[in-house]
């Protein structure tokens, strides 16, 4: 390094020595190496230099520039090792593209029930929503003159075709098409001509059916008690009380105690021998039980929903409350 420039270099060394931030460093860099920096100014001398001196001066200046660059670069890596140069990130800002949808609370509830019952050997079966009177009523021991048909205010689409009033019609079709033993569950939409804050003309049900040799009422009680515990995830006060359905005998209803009050959650019973004989199953050889429950009612209990109509208004502010549920 030539004499006239060595002082420049040592000055640079001193400055770099005391520099401790990225900001200062970039100032130093532009002070020496910038377009109008000290070293660039020195290069301007080349223009006025005599041709025979130009080569020598050029060599000196290049050496100066190399040295300055080397020093500054050294400082850059030194600083980057000790300090983070990157802009500090704000971890509290929202993540990008947050988007999660969800299943409908009615289907969430159906899927939960299916998951529980599958462990007890029940298979999901789907069926027609537009049914005939045989599968929806007659085969289920509900003849035309029966007062129980009043319990089902039925929508008709033709003389004989109707919107199923329960999913039991699917059970009839299953029993007709396969032989016992049988464990099935039938979730789906059902329709009754009823509309007020607690009734909707369309709602969802799931029904279960178990047919085998030696199936009895104590099996029914055991399955449904465990089912309720698994569904609610805790021990519940439950009671069975006698009820009436044309397709079961004996018939029962299961109530749970919720906030100090008994609420009925499902109907059940031993499959009526007339139903078994309607589907050509020998009721001396086989017996079975069936149960059915309304999904909306259960979903309302589970999520604290107070108005049934919320399920079909499909307000996104309502639906997005069920994100991440399984």
């Amino acid at each position, binding site marked *: 390094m030539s004499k006239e420039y060595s002082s420049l270099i040592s000055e640079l060394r001193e400055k770099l020595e005391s520099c401790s931030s990225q900001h200062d460093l970039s100032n130093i860099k532009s002070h020496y190496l910038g377009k109008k920096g000290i070293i660039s100014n020195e290069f301007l001398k080349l223009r006025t230099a005599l041709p025979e001196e130009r080569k020598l001066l050029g060599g000196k200046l290049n050496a100066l520039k190399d040295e300055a660059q080397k020093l500054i670069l050294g400082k850059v890596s030194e600083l980057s090792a000790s300090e983070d140069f990157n802009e500090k990130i704000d971890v509290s800002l929202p993540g*990008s593209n947050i988007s999660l949808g969800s299943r409908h609370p009615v289907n969430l509830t159906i899927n939960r029930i299916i998951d529980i019952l599958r462990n007890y050997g029940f298979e999901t079966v789907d069926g027609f929503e537009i049914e005939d009177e045989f599968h929806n009523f007659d085969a289920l021991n509900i003849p035309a003159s029966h007062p*129980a048909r009043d319990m089902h205010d039925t929508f008709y689409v033709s003389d004989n075709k109707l919107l199923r009033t329960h999913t039991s019609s699917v059970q009839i079709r299953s029993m007709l098409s396969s032989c016992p033993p049988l464990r099935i569950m039938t979730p789906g939409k059902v329709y009754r001509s009823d509309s007020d804050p607690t009734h909707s003309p369309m709602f969802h049900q799931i029904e279960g059916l178990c047919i085998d040799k030696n199936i009895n009422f104590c099996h029914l009680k*055991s399955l449904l008690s465990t089912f309720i515990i698994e569904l609610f995830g805790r021990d519940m006060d439950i009671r069975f009380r006698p009820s009436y359905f044309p397709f079961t005998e004996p018939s029962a209803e299961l109530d749970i105690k919720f906030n100090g009050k008994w609420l009925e959650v499902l109907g059940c019973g031993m499959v009526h021998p007339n139903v078994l004989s309607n589907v050509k199953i020998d009721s001396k050889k086989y017996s079975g039980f069936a149960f059915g429950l309304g999904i909306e009612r259960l979903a309302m209990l589970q999520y604290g929903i107070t108005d049934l109509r919320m399920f079909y208004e499909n307000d996104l502010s309502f639906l997005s409350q069920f994100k991440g549920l399984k």
Partner: protein
Amino acid sequence: MKISLNWLKEFLGNIKNNDQLIARLTSMGLEVDSVTKSKKDSVIDIDMTPNRADCLSVMGIARDLSPIYKKKVSMPKVAKLSTKTKSYIKGVNKKISTVYSILVIEDFDNSLATPKNISDRLELCGISQINFIVDVLNYVMLEIGQPMHVFDKDKLNGDLDVRFAKKGEKINTLDGNEYILSTDIPVISDNNGPQAIAGVIGSNNSSVGGDTRSIVIESAFFNQNLIRKSAKKYRLQTESSYRFERGVDPNLSDLALGRVIDVVSQYSKIKKHTYNSVVTKPASPHLNKYIKMDMSDFERILGEKIPNKFIIDTLSYLGFNPVMVKNKLKVSVPSHRFDISIPEDIIEEVARVYGYNNFSEIPLPPTNLSTNNISRNNTNIFLDLLSSRGYLEVITFSFLPKDSQELFLSNKSKIDVLNPISEDKSEMRVSMMNGLLKTAKYNISRQNSDIKIFEIGKTYKKQKDKSISEENILAGIISGANYSHNLKQLQKIIDFHDLKGDLMSIFPNLFFKESKNTSYLSNSCQAVIAQGKKTVGLCGEPSLSLYKQFGIKNKIFYFEIYIDLVKLNQKVTYKPISVYPKIFRDLTLLVNNNISCDDIINSIQRKSFNYMINIRISDIFYSKKDFGNDKKSMTIELVFQDNSRTLQDDDVNGQMSKIIGFLEKEFNAVIRN
């Protein structure tokens, strides 16, 4: 049904624990809906199941509780009826009535105020007061379960005839309506015409009032089905029809008349009464029905051994007549139990009294039945994937407003609900689109305009042969902004390719083909979705008329997938991964505008050139100036790799020239780079 607690206790004797009594009702299947306490009494509201006609009276309910309190319930005090005469009844059609009894009282003072103990109980039970004799009849009906009717004898013309109505006959009923009767309606008539729709309601013309001085009281057994028919036809559910259509004990008719005399006599002296009864089929204490069963049937169905003595005692208290010989049981059914006909009915009677909650629980035996519903599981996988891409699941009604689907299908294939609950739910949907557009509109108007929704459901169509088909459809709609919470990217309004991207991420091997055939989609933006060679759905923008019909101004994209036709990813078999480097090549070509990018990519893929493992479009460029209106420039990126060695430039160059040759030949492409 509302009953008074004190009244019930009169039949059961000295019961101290009211709460326990009420709990017993529910445990017996007579579900207590509510209990309202008043000063001296309580009203118990029971939710009666339709099979329990025998419990539509205080006496009947007490009888049902009798095995629990081990107390036989007997009839209240009954006066003796005078000898049967042959007057006042002209005829009884035996199809209508098997027992038709009347009681005639002359010199009767109906201006008497109803005694307080009667009127109080009627009020508790929710029965309005009319006048003395009507109130007494209602009281006896509540007490023992026999509905009765009273005529003002002075208003009747001639004897009573129990018959079907004649064509065109009219009746002005007590509820103030006039009905024109059809010939399948049973009536009680005099010479002037129908004076009552049998078992349902009486006529204004022969009704009793405070000034009535002589009365004819009718107490009968009517055919259940006929009463049900009339009540349903004229929508008349009266206390009387309610009981008759469920079944009234045929042995009660005369007892009820005797009870009426006893009650009336406590307040007003009856000098003389006339009694007549026409019995077309004699009733007996039992229904002449015997149920034969094995004692072991109880355990077979209930799962628990119940002591024989308990079974016999229970049935006896309830009025059955059980006879046990060795292990066989023969039970005769009392005339008030229409609901009992098979062994299982008897089993339920015993189980009710035993207490459902006292049975133990026996775990269901394990099974090796399959529980796998493949199509349902597959569908659920797609639905879960859609929701993880931000879609919310909705459920809309399967029925739609009248005439709202003209765009979708011809009227022939549409299915109407014959008795809709309202005009806006009167035809079955043939497409999912209406419900989804309605949902979109609802949310947009509630300031939720960023919409990504889907629904799984059925559509319903009538086929040419009149049969009905139901199809499972997965459909959805997107609208509004694509990125809502993102500081780095600007809000982006969704477009067709956002929808396509979502679908392609979820369903394997989808192809989209431009189409114009669907009337409810816009002509400029609609595509048929195929998986392999099979058409599995549709997507695009709704037609202008749908935008208008629903009053939606925001841009919307719709899709529908015929979910049962869609295949899940094929069975996965592991393929070895290459450890050798990939070579990337770009190819820019000029092709005619009408050649779809998909076609070019797919045909190269189908040709399966050596070493080529991937291909994608990396750029597309239109320039009127450079290559005119009918051409576009597209750049495709091709990736080459081999499993066994590092590829050399020559390997790739060879393939590239084959590909270029193919493109030039197939698509008239001009290579630009």
